[in-house]
């Protein structure tokens, strides 16, 4: 079926506002990841969901960042009180757990600009 879908593709917000970014993983994929890609930088791991297990939140940069995954499918990344340094491309990936290859399939990302 379709690949990983992210929305919106672009988001411009004012400093201090809250934003929500959405990710629809590939159907049947139980693992879901969020990464952040800043200009000129590699991808930075943010959070990982696997089925009904507790998420790995070790990459979230501050308590302004949170994410949830409802029904084991769609995920929302929320950034509260956005700051200019939050400007980046936020990428979502999904994979089938249990495969040794660990292929992560990425969406096209949401480009967030904080003015």
């Amino acid at each position: 079926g379709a690949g990983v879908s992210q929305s919106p593709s672009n988001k411009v917000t004012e400093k201090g506002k809250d934003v929500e970014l959405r990710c629809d993983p590939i159907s049947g994929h139980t693992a879901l990841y969020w990464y952040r890609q800043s200009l000129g930088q590699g991808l930075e791991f943010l959070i990982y969901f696997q089925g009904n297990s507790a998420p790995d939140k070790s990459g979230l940069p501050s308590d302004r960042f949170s994410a949830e995954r409802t029904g084991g499918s769609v995920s929302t990344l929320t950034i509260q009180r956005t700051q200019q340094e939050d400007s980046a491309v936020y990428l979502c990936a999904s994979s089938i757990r249990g495969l040794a290859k660990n292929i992560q399939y990425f969406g096209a990302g949401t480009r967030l600009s904080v003015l």
Partner: protein
Amino acid sequence: QQQVKQSPQSLIVQKGGISIINCAYENTAFDYFPWYQQFPGKGPALLIAIRPDVSEKKEGRFTISFNKSAKQFSLHIMDSQPGDSATYFCAASLLGATNKLIFGTGTLLAVQP
């Protein structure tokens, strides 16, 4: 311990030439090393990957060379084509509970016709 260092930052190669991108890591517990290719406006896509029990893996024009003792691995693109122009990321992960990828900073490759 978690860092993956990638070089060069950018690379210009003539069509038909060989593109070489290098990565180094510190954490000896890493056991999976993928390379991702990213075109502008798109998400990264897996290109080729290797486990540390082999020293080389080849898929078409793309080859990973892996040196476990030196904790280094590299991507070689043979007969480089303009369509290969993209950003390439090396990565590493622990195949365990999280499988999160630790990425290098990326190499912007431009293949000139």
